[in-house]
Structures are given as C-alpha cells and as structure tokens.
C-alpha cells in the first residue's frame, strides 16, 4: 500500500483544512499498511519482469513478495522514471539496487520499510547529467500542416515550457532524455510527445471534437467555452445550413438561449425582431416599445443598417406599419447564409462590455467563411422550395355569411335597405349574387410561392495564402399573382496572406450583394381578404379594376373606396446594394506582442420606387398618378488599431489588449414625391411628373473609443478577465460625450482540481463562472441636445417665402444610459465531453434610460430626450444541453436542447405618480405590462360584453379619464422559449428535426377586427359563437350590423382593449425537418466528386397551438403568417 503526500500548490486558503484532513487520512492508511505487512509471512526472494513499468507498480509487486513497505512522497514519486527489470529469485537488496541504479532516487531500509528519497547527486553525476540533457526542437502544425504559433509546449511534470513562434517552431533547452512534452492549444486536443531526440520534426495536432474546444469568435479575438468566462453562444455553419432559408436571421429562431427572434410576417424579405435578454429600455412613446436591438458586427465591422428595415416607402412587408420593429424589409436579406462560418451571440458583461456603449443590448457577431489550406475545393448548394402559408383561420362561406348578416339585422331591429350610409344598408343581401362564393382568403394568400437558391464557393490555399470566393443567387416569389418577387445576387471574396516569416499577416475581405424586392406597395392587399364572400367580381369583364357596382361607387361598400386588387398595382421596387469590405493587418513585433489594425467600410444603399398609378385609385376622386422615389445611403467606416500581448509563464497565461475605435457613420436619404404624371406610361420616370417635391435628411454619427482587456488563465483552472472602455459619442452635448464602461469576469474550472477528478470521473469538465460589468447606450437621434428648426415641408412656402418650424425641445443634459450586467454560470461536460450542459443566470439592470420623455402637448412637443430615472431589470435562466446521445459506427444521434426563462421587471421609477407613465407602468411589473379592461362576460339579458370597474361593479362602458378602470392584464413577453434539435445519422442518411417553442400570451384575432361581428365583412368561423337570446352562454356578444355609436359597438371597442383578447399564444413549432442522403465516397470518387448530398427539407411544417388567430408568432390577422417551405436540394463538393 502506497500513499503519496500530494504537493500543494496555489490552493485557495479555504481549502487547506480539507487537504490537511486528506493528508492525515493518508498517514493512517500508510500505518495500516505497515501493520498489515508485519503480520504476513514473507518470502525474501523476488521475481520481476517489467518493461517501462511505473515505479509504483514495481514497488507493489515487491511489497507483495517481500512484505516490505515503501514510503515515498508524491513529489519524489513524480521524478521517478519507468522501470525495466528482469530478475528471478533475486535478493531484495539486489533488486532494489538494480531498480534504483537508473533512478534519480536512493533508498534506505529501515525495519520492514523502504524509505525512498531523491538521490543527492555526486559531482560526477551532475557533470554527466548536464551532457546527457538535450535541446529539443520541433514544429507544431495543424492537420493540414499549417504551422501553429503560440502553442504552449511544456515538459511534463515541470513548470518549464515555451510557446511556438510564428512558424510553429519551439525549442526547449536541457531536456532530460525520456521527458514527455505536453502540447496544448486552444481548439486542439492535448498531445503528449516523448522528447527522445533533439529534432522532433512536425507534430500534428488534432482538432478537438469536444464542443468545449470549439473556437468562438468574441470581441477582438477568439476563445473557447473551456477557457472563457463570458456568456457566448455559437451557431455554426452546419446548423445554419441545415435550414433552407434566405435570411440568416431566420435560422437563429429558437436556436440560442437568451435570443428571441420573431418573424415580422411571411412576406418575402420581411424583417425580424431580434432581442437579446429582454427589453432594456422603456418605450419611447408611452405604451410603445423601442426595438432594443443588439449590435450587429460582420467580420469586425458594424453593419451599417443594423436590423432596421431598409425601406422608407411603404411596402407590403409593413404589416405592422412603416418603420416599426419587425416591419418592412430586412437588411439581412442581402446576406447569404451559405457564406457564414458562424454567428456568435454575446450576452453578458464580460462578452459585451468591451463594446462599451454599443453593447447594452448584446452583440451579434457574424463571421464569414474563410479559405482553408488544402486543395482547391468547389462546393455548392442548390435548392428549390414551395411556400404556402403555414396557418390561417377558415372564414364563413356565403350561406353562413348571409345568415349571420340577417341575424345581425334582426338583432338591430333593422330591415335591409339599399341606401348607402344609412343603418341597415345591406347590398350583400339585396344586390350581390346570393349564390356567389369567393374564397378571398385563397385569393389573397392562398396560392403557393417558390424559392430558388443557388450558392457556390471556391476555396483553398497553401501555408501562407488562403482564399475563399462565394457566389449566390436567390429568388422568392410572392403568394399572389402580379409578378412580385424578391431576388438576390451576391459575391464575397476573402484572402489571407502571411509573410514568409509569418510575423506579418493581412486579411482582406470584400463582398457585394444586390437585392431587388419587387413588392406590392401596400400591405392593405391582404387586409381585404375579409370581403363578403359573395362580393361581386373585383374586375370588369375586360380585366380592368372595377370601381362601381351596379352604378354605386365602390366607396359605399369598402370604406377606403379602393379596390383591393388595385393595391397590387401600387408597386414598390426596393433595390438594395450592400458593399462590405475590411482589412485586418497584423504584425508581431516581439514574441507574443502583436500590433493589429482592423479597417472596415460598410455601405448599404437602398433605392426605392413606389408607384400609385391612376388605375389603382378610385376614379371618383379624379385621381392623379403619384410616384415616390427614395434613395438611402447608410455607411459605416471604422478603424480599430490594437496592441495585444500574450505570454505564458509556467502555467500562467496572460494576455493583454489595448486598442481604439474610430467610427463614423451616416445615414442620408433623399426622397422625391411626384404627382400628376402626364401619362401613366411614364410613371416610372419621376421627371415626367408635373409636381415633384424633394426631402432630404442625414444623420452623421461619430464615435470614438479606447478599450483594454486583460485575461489571466492559470493552468486552464482559474480564469480571470478584465475589460474596460472609454467611449465618446457625437450624440451628446459637449461635456456629456464621454462614458466609461468595464467588466470583470472570473471562472473556476473545478474539474481541473485533483479532488474533483477523484470524486467524479464521469464529469469531464466543470466550470463555474461569474461576470459583472457595465455597458452603455447612446441610442438617441443626433442633434437632440440643441434646438433645431427646419423647413416646414418641402415646397410649402408662405406667399413664396420660406418657413421654419421647431423640431424638438432641446435638452443639453442627457448622456449615456447604462446597463449593469451580472451573470453566473455553470458549465458541465460528461462522458469525455459527449454531453455538454450550460446553465446561466443573468440580471441586467438598465438605468438612466435614454428615451423621449413623454410630455403633455401644452409644452409644444410630445417628448423631450432625457435620461430617465427608471430602472428596468431583466433576469433570466438559460439552459442548454447538447450531446452525442448515440455514437455508433452506423447510427449517430446528436441532440441539443435549450430553454430560456426570462423575466422583466420595472425595479424603480422614482416619482412615477407625477409622470405620464403612471398610467402605463407599474413598479414591480414588466415594462411590457398591458393595461386593459377586465372582461366580465356577457350580460345575459342584453347580450353585450361587460367589464369590471375599479369599484368592482360591472358595466358595458368602463371608460374612465384616468384609466381607473384599466387593469394590469398581463404581458406579451414570452414566459419561456427555446428549441430542441435532434440529428440522426445512419449509413449516409441524415434526419434532422428541430422544434421551436414559446410560452406566451398574445392578442388573438379579435383584437384586429375592424368592425363588430355582423358588419358587412367576413369573419372567421370561430366568431359565430355569439349570444342570440337571453340566457345564452356564448363566447361573443350579440351580432350587430352597426360599426359605431351603439352600446354594442362601444362594448366591442372595450372588448378589444380587454384581457379577453389577450389569450394563450404558446406554441410548439416543427420549425425544421430535413432528410438528406450523403452519397458514398467510393461511388463519388470515380466521378471526381468529394461530396454529394441530396435532401428534402421543410420549414414551419406544423404548429401545435391553441392560439385563435392566424399565427401565434406574428399574431397579425391582416398579414401573411410565416410561410411553410418545402425544399428539395443538393449540396456538392468537388
């Protein structure tokens, strides 16, 4: 029995007592071993046959044969060398002499014990050992023989080591023969090499398959989950490419804990709402919400349009209104997911605080693909999809509809008449064909659309240069006829070059993308799908738009007076060109000391042309053709010089980074609106209009920062990270421009501790981490600190003279808002990292909110920009579990699950009572709290909705000036959300299934009904569950043909503002299902193809929900729900 006194090194003091206890235990055990020995009968002759055996094994065998105990400390044991011995029936002393001859150890016999200690070397031995030690040199390379610099090479069991230079070469002097070198590098598997000769040649490192070693891109560098103390989630190109989507943002939905992605609507090119860890700021308008979008950075350069819709003129995608978050056309439609290597979502203070002012709402880093050393590869993907709407509500057919109308009329005590504008006007019952049936739902969005997409990429390179060239073309049509589609073509190019001595490197990237969205100019197209099902044909026999029905103008039937099909004649052609280029220069001045400069420029130009021809307008109003043109040019350039220093000293790895950011951006726009074209044929030429007015705007923004980061890593066990940043922004008044932000993060990899390894050997990795820090926000308009006047409106003169109007209330005092982020996390890996668990808890507190503070209009303006005293808190839990459930030769099953449980709360709002927010916000409740009436069922006698008042009474008209009768009716924020992915590989087949889920409340379809049920428009079948006579227990109130001014119609308005329409909108969506087949390499080789994959893929295949409405995610009744796409595709690789 042998026990070793463990050597204590750098243990935290708190652990000492426990270790002492372990030591005591060891002594006891040794004594026990001695007692045991004395009791046994012992043979004195020893027989051994060992080759390269650990000394402790040899001792054990001798003990068993001789009964002698060995006493040795752990540190002494460490210097022992493997034993080679071949003896038969030898004396103990002879055996020991033979063993110790080749050991740096000596022994002493005492009673029945052998005491082992370090040999005190003789002078001769010292001289001899000096000459036997060798200088070892070698070169560390990756699997493609690309030299790896900065790799740490350590002599095992010592603190001696070195890092490789730029060429991957290391030299360690005076290595004792037989020493083992431990080679470790982020992202690669640890390797041990015997230092048995002076030149070791190339040593290949193998890329780690553990998720923990996957390289994560972070601010100004990279890291791995194993060594990071921040909260970063990564989506790989594999996961992106498992989904057949045009817009990369669509591929993020449900995939990242803490990231909430919501589809705006199902129109091609439509934008997405994106939010990391909840709403940090209050709405800029009482009751509204600002988007709080994260910062998007592509290859180190801020993306000029960020996630704002690119269109300024109205398009079909604006179902939520022009410029609303999640409305309009997404700028990310210009980016091909196939060219993306990874998307990293940075969440906590450690990960984001180096972005300072821009990191408050989290950061999303998009890294594009880079060439890899190796043979030239041509890879590509082609797919075609058929798209249909995923979910809609069936509407009444003609019979049901007419019956509803008749019932409604009789409820109102009216008889149908034919006089427009009078109560009882019912052309649908009197004039329209009683047997005609059009399914307008199908007419407006029942068709299918098609997507075509093709991407190819050429890449390759040698040790010093790599390149990547990618090309893409994609096209998606709209759901209805008219030739509407969105098209994209883009090309990217990336070059990497290293100087021969590898001290200097340059990365160049350039990408150009052009998209053209031929969109209908008005979202009102679909809002007309609720036309009466027997509404006469909207076209005349000759195919032209119909504007009157039996001599009565359409105005009498459709309140807007516009033929719904005419909206399709209003076309908005949105062309967007984005140009992205960057250059990263890097020079290693001293080993570990690098100077880098990142130079980038991003330009996004949108050119729109919206036409409203005469044909699209009711001729009654003697219309004129109009057209608008808008050209927006958004650009960002930034320069980021950085100086970094990395140093490994023993087991201590230190790195420092200091740098600066110079950024300038502008978003300027010129809009022209033209009326009165001489001829509709010339409507596409704005110069042909009689009247053209011009407007322009610009918003220059300059931003300047200095930043620094220090990280410390001891033995991959203790991790520390410090970040600091000083930011200056042009959005603040002089004196208020500078803000300081910083963070501290620490991690403890418990699994590196010996005691942990002994205790839980199935846990291969365990890390506790925490971070705290501040980030800021300067998300306000420019020039808000001065009082600005501008021309009232273009072309509006007063008797030929110019007129100015004030634009804002000046407030020179506002400055940075800050978000304090606190996070704790636990990361565990089991079974050799096959199963990886990440759990995080976060708390973000935003204060000094920078928003338009609401003012009564008696001040002249509705808002003034100022720092706000409110503190908004977002807390939450995020869990992710991923693993290789089955790793067999034939079957491979990978699984990934994530869940986010967010909670938003208004923590403090001093003086809220005397602010306009008192009626909207409640301290202690989420900022998204909705105030509404409390539904109290239907009055059984009158059949009218009733609501509870503050005093507890029940009424059908609960209006009170101070919103006294409005209650907290809940929030639309998700209670939890996440996704679950499973991938099965079996003999070349791959089956991938991804479920996205969300638990939330949302407005049901009743919220968007313009008129009470019974009015002259179609309704979903569900709406017919109405009260008919006293005592009915129905869901909806009595039918009425009126749209305003009666008790029933008023109650309908209150109903839409009540908790009755805020219902469960939770869902589980079968987001992605795909089945693919990888053709066997043997088969392909003959055809000189290295990879070929064919697949069928479905997006949004099915949704499980109780939601009453078209889609629980978009929650828009008059808009296209997310589409269901079924794609067929091929991936190839030459």
């Amino acid at each position, binding site marked *: 029995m042998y026990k070793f006194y463990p050597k204590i090194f750098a243990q935290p003091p708190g652990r000492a007592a426990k270790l002492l206890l372990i030591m005591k235990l060891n002594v006891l055990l040794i004594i026990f071993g001695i007692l045991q020995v004395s009791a046994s009968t012992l043979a004195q002759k020893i027989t051994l046959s060992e080759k390269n055996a650990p000394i402790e094994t040899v001792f054990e065998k001798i003990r068993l044969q001789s009964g002698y105990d060995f006493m040795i400390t752990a540190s002494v044991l460490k210097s022992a060398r493997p034993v080679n011995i071949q003896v038969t029936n030898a004396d103990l002393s002879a055996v020991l002499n033979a063993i110790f001859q080749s050991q740096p150890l000596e022994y002493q016999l005492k009673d029945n014990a052998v005491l082992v200690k370090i040999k005190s070397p003789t002078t001769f031995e010292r001289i001899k050992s000096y000459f036997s030690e060798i200088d070892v040199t070698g070169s560390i390379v990756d699997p493609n023989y690309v030299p790896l610099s900065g790799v740490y090479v350590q002599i095992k069991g010592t603190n001696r080591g070195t890092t490789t230079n730029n060429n991957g070469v290391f030299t360690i002097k005076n290595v004792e023969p037989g020493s083992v070198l431990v080679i470790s590098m982020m992202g690669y598997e640890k390797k041990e090499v015997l230092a048995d000769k002076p030149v070791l040649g190339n040593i290949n490192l193998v890329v780690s398959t553990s998720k923990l070693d996957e390289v994560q891109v972070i601010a100004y560098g990279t890291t791995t989950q194993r060594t990071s103390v921040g909260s970063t989630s990564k989506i790989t190109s594999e996961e992106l490419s498992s989904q057949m989507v045009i817009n990369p943002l669509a591929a993020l939905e449900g995939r990242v804990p803490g990231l909430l992605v919501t589809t705006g609507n199902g129109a091609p090119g439509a934008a997405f709402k994106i939010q990391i860890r909840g709403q940090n700021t209050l709405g800029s308008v009482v009751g509204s919400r600002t988007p709080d979008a994260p910062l998007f950075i592509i290859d180190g350069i801020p993306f000029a349009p960020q996630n704002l819709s690119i269109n300024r003129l109205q398009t079909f995608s604006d179902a939520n209104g022009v410029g609303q978050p999640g409305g309009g056309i997404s700028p990310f439609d210009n980016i091909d997911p196939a060219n993306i290597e990874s998307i990293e979502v940075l969440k906590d203070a450690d990960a984001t605080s180096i972005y300072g002012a821009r990191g408050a709402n989290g950061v999303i880093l998009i890294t594009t693909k880079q060439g890899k050393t190796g043979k030239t590869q041509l890879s590509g993907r082609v797919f075609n999809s058929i798209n249909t709407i995923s979910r809609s509500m069936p509407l009444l057919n003609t019979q049901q509809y007419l019956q509803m109308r008749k019932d409604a009329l009789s409820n109102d005590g009216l008889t149908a008449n034919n006089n427009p504008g009078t109560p009882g006007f019912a052309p649908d019952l009197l004039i329209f064909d009683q047997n005609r049936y059009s399914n307008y739902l199908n007419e407006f969005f029942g068709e299918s659309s098609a997507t075509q997409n093709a991407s190819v990429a050429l890449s390759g390179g040698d040790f010093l240069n790599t390149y990547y060239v990618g090309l893409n073309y994609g096209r998606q049509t709209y759901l209805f006829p008219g030739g509407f589609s969105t098209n994209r073509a883009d090309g990217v190019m990336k070059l990497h070059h290293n100087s021969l001595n590898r001290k200097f490197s340059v990365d160049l990237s350039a990408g150009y993308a052009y998209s053209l969205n031929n969109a209908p100019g008005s979202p009102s197209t679909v809002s007309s799908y609720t036309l009466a099902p027997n509404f006469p044909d909207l076209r005349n026999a000759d195919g032209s738009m119909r504007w009157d029905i039996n001599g009565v103008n359409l105005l009498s039937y459709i309140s807007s007076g516009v033929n719904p099909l005419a909206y399709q004649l209003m076309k908005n052609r949105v062309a967007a060109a984005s140009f992205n280029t960057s250059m990263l220069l890097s020079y290693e001045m001293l080993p570990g000391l690098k100077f880098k400069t990142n130079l980038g420029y991003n330009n996004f130009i949108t050119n729109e042309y919206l036409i409203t021809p005469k044909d699209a307008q009711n001729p009654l109003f003697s219309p004129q053709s109009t057209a608008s043109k808008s050209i927006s040019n958004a650009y960002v350039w930034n320069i980021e010089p950085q100086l970094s220093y990395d140093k490994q000293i023993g087991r201590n790895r230190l790195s420092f980074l200091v740098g600066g950011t110079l950024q300038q951006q502008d978003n300027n726009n010129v809009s022209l609106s033209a009326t009165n074209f001489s001829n509709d044929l010339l409507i596409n030429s704005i110069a042909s209009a009689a009247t053209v007015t011009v407007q322009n705007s610009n918003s220059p923004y300059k931003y300047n920062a200095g930043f620094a980061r220090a990280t410390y890593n001891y033995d991959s066990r203790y991790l520390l990270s410090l970040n600091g940043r000083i930011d200056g922004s042009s959005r603040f008044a002089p004196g208020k421009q500078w803000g300081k932000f910083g963070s501290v993060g620490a991690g403890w990899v418990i699994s590196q501790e010996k005691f942990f390894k002994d205790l839980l050997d199935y846990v291969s990795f365990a890390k506790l981490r925490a971070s705290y820090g501040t980030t800021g926000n300067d998300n306000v308009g420019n020039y808000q600190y001065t009082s600005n006047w501008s021309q009232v409106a273009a072309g509006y003169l007063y008797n030929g003279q110019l007129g100015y109007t004030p634009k804002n209330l000046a407030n020179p005092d506002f400055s940075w808002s800050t978000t304090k982020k606190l996070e704790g996390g636990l990361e565990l890996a089991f079974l050799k990292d096959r199963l990886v668990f990440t759990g995080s808890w976060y708390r973000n507190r935003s204060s000094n909110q920078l928003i338009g503070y609401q003012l009564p209009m008696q001040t*002249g303006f*509705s808002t003034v920009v100022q720092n706000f005293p409110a503190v908004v808190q977002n807390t939450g839990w995020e869990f992710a579990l991923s693993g290789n459930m089955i790793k067999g030769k034939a079957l491979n099953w990978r699984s990934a699950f994530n869940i986010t449980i967010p909670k938003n709360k208004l923590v403090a709002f001093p003086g809220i009572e005397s602010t306009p927010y008192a009626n909207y916000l409640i301290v202690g409740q989420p900022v998204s709290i909705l105030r509404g009436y409390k539904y109290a069922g239907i009055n059984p006698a009158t059949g009218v909705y009733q609501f509870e008042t503050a005093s507890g009474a029940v009424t059908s008209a609960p209006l009170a000036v101070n919103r006294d009768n409005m209650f907290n009716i809940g929030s639309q924020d998700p209670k939890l959300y996440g996704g679950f992915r499973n991938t099965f590989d079996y003999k070349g087949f791959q089956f991938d299934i991804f479920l996205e889920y969300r638990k939330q409340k949302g407005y049901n379809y009743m919220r968007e009904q313009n008129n009470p049920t019974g009015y002259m428009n179609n309704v979903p079948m569900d709406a017919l569950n109405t009260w008919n006579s006293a005592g009915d227990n129905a869901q909806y109130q009595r039918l009425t043909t009126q749209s*305003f001014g009666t008790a029933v119609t008023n109650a309908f308005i209150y109903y839409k503002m009540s908790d009755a329409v805020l219902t469960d909108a939770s869902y589980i969506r079968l987001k992605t299902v795909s089945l693919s087949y990888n053709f066997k390499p043997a088969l392909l080789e003959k055809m000189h193809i290295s990879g070929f994959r064919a697949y069928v893929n479905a997006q949004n295949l099915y949704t499980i929900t109780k939601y009453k409405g078209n889609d629980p995610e978009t929650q828009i009744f008059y808009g296209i729900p997310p589409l269901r796409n079924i794609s067929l595709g091929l991936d190839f690789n030459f």
Partner: protein
Amino acid sequence: MMKYNSISTIFCTVACITAMLHLASCRKFIEIPAPINSITSDQIFVDSVNATAAINGIYINMMNNGFSTGFANSTTTMLAGLSADEMDNAANTANYKEFFANNITGTNTSNLTFWNNIYTYLYEANACIEGAEASTTLTSSLKNRIVGEAKFLRAFYHFYLMNLYGSAPLVLTTDYTVTSKLPRADRSAMEMQILADLNEAQQLLNGDRSAITKNRVNRFAVTAMLARVNLYQQQWAAAETAATAVITANFRLEPILNNVFLTNNQEQIWQMTPVAPGLETTEGQIFIPAAPTLVPAFVITPALNSAYENGDQRKTSWLRSVTIGANTYTYPFKYKLIRDNNTSPREAYSVLRLAEQYLIRAEARVQQGNLSGAAADLNVVRNRAGLANTTASGPSEILAAIQRERRVELACEWGHRWMDLKRTQTADAVLGTKPNWKATATLFPIPNAQIILNPFLTQNPGY
C-alpha cells in the same frame, strides 16, 4: 530577445500606444457637422430672412395641418359647426358624429389633435417672441413685427382655447420644465393675458405704417381681434372703438359675394394663403364633394338652411346642393376651389373680415343705446346680401336681428355660431332640441390623453 531589433520594436510599441491613446482622447473625432436640413435656434434670430421664416412657419403650419386634424384651416369651423346647429357629418365618421351629438368622448382624436395643434403653434409663437426679443442683430422694426405678430397669435390661440374648453393652460414660455406642469389657468387670468397680448401687439405693429399685408397678422387684424374680444367680454365701448377703427380704415365690403374669399379681397383683414402645392383651401377640399355623384362629407343642417331669408343671395352664393337619388344634400360653398394646379392659389382662408366688424359694432352700439347706428351697421351687411334694411326695432329686436345676421353671414366660419350661442347664453335654449343636449356640452372635453400626461389638468364637468 536580442535577435529582434529591440530599439526599433520598442519605439514602434511606444508609438502605437501613443497613437492609440491620442485616438481615444481626441475630441475632434466625435465632432459632427451641423445638420444639413435644420438650423439651430441660435442661428434663427440673427438675420431677417431666418427670423421671418420662423414666423412664417407658424402660418404654414396653421395652413398645412388642416385636413380634419388641425385648429385653423377648417377644423374649428367643422368641430364647432357640428357642435352647434350648423352642420352634420354625412360620412358618418365616428369622431365627427360625437361632436354633432354633443357627446364627445375624452378619447376623441379630432378633439385631441385640435388641442395638440393649438399648443404646437403656441410653442412656436413663444419661441418667436423669446428669440426675437433676445436677438441683438435684428432691426428694431423687424423685432417689433415678429414679436407683435407672435403676441397676437398667442392671444388668438388662447382665445379659442378659452372659448372652446372653458379654460386651459396659459403658456407663455418655451421652457418645458415650466409648461409641462401647468394646470388650467383661471378664466380671468386668460382674459387678462389675451387683452394684454393684443394690446402689446397693437403697440408693436402700429409703428409699422407700411401697406397692409393681408396674409400676415397686421395692425388692423389686431384691432379687429380686440373688437371681438371686447365684445365677448361685454366691453361695449372698447369693442365699438376698435371696430370703428377697422371700418374706417381702407377695407370695403365686397359687393360680389362669390369674390369675398378670393385672395387679397378688399373685405379681408387677415386671410391666410394655402400652402400645399397645387391645392386651394382645405375647406374647399373637405366641403366640396370630389365628384358630383358623391354625398358631401359635411352637410348643413335644415335649421341653418331655413335661417336664410327669402332673397338672401348668400344662400345661393355660399351654399350649394347636390341631389343623389332621392336625397338632396346642401353643403357650405364659401370656398369654391379644390385644386389649382401649377398656379398660386386664388382663394385664401379668411380669419378676420370686415362684415364681422360691422356686426360687432352693431351689437356694441345696441348695448350702448345707439339703435340707429346699430341698424345702419346691420343694414350694410344685409344690403350686400341683397336684403332690405332691417325692420327690427327696439334693443332686443335689433339684438336678435344681429344674431340672426351673424348666423347667416358668418355661417360655417370659424365656429362663430357656436361661440355666439355660448356667449349670449342661448345655447341651452337653441340646442336643447338636439337629442342628447346637456348644459355641460357647451365645453369640449380636455382630451383624456393630455390629462394622463399632465396630472395637473382637470376635466370639464359632464365628461
């Protein structure tokens, strides 16, 4: 280490760090140029062009915000006209119907935008007053003109706020820290401030002896407004004096009724020019149906239709009818043009005109016992409309005749009828015949949204 050129490396490092520190601290890098499409307030009141543009902006805004959402340029006419017995909304728009039914909800958006717009203009007027008064570079004559016009406008806005809402916050500064918490002022404080502002405006504008520019607030517009305010405050002598000053000035009643609302008409004291390119007045656009087959959005009530005496040419000149099916709809037709492409507008929006001054003086004269003088003034207006002299005799009869005359002469113009009924305490008697009439309906509700935004505001009784 020595194999690197350490001196140059160290130099490089120091240079880089210095450069970055320099970068990080350089304020120049965060200075942005002045906005291209706006001017800061300190540039406005420096020269005459910009300073004049500042006050022009108010006129443009008043003429631009009109179409169902404003204060000037049709909205006062519509909302007050609907509330009184002048017109009805045939388009059945809920917002307007509430005014017609005298059952305005606190959430009515027309009421809200009406209120909001007046206060927007009030801010602009105050900004002009403050900016011009503080300017050291403007000539004193320009300063006087700007401050005079702005003070008049401030009084004008407060006058309408007071008469339509009972009382309202009295806004005399642009400082939002002050104005955001203002409660409704006492009515007497408002009356005093209105008079003070008008008197001051008169002082400031009287110095300007140049020809009257009708499309701006001018010295006679101030006097005319003083006549009206004094009439409302029953300061008969002052009302008469002011009205006389206008009547004896260079204004004449326009003999041809169809021409009264043309630009630069001799009857007009202050009229505002339409600003939307190619368009005429908003009232023309709202009241005149876009097509002859369309039901007009606003129709005059049978009561108003029958208030015209036989032979009153105003009935044929200033009203028009359209027959659709079995129904005939009559709508206001003082403004006769909708669109006048490519030329400057031919009609202008009348705010103050001479006929009202005759009627003011007539009323003031009756109240002071000058019956013949009153009848003479009344007859000037009647004769122009093709009517014979009044047959009324005795103070009460003449007063009633003046009110009848005001009703038809000033019909569908700036809410005169509604405010006359209120100031003569006859609203209950006349409007009591409307189905939902309540005494409290004489005041519009303060918009709920504004009460929520300013907890110091109180609602009018009955809402």
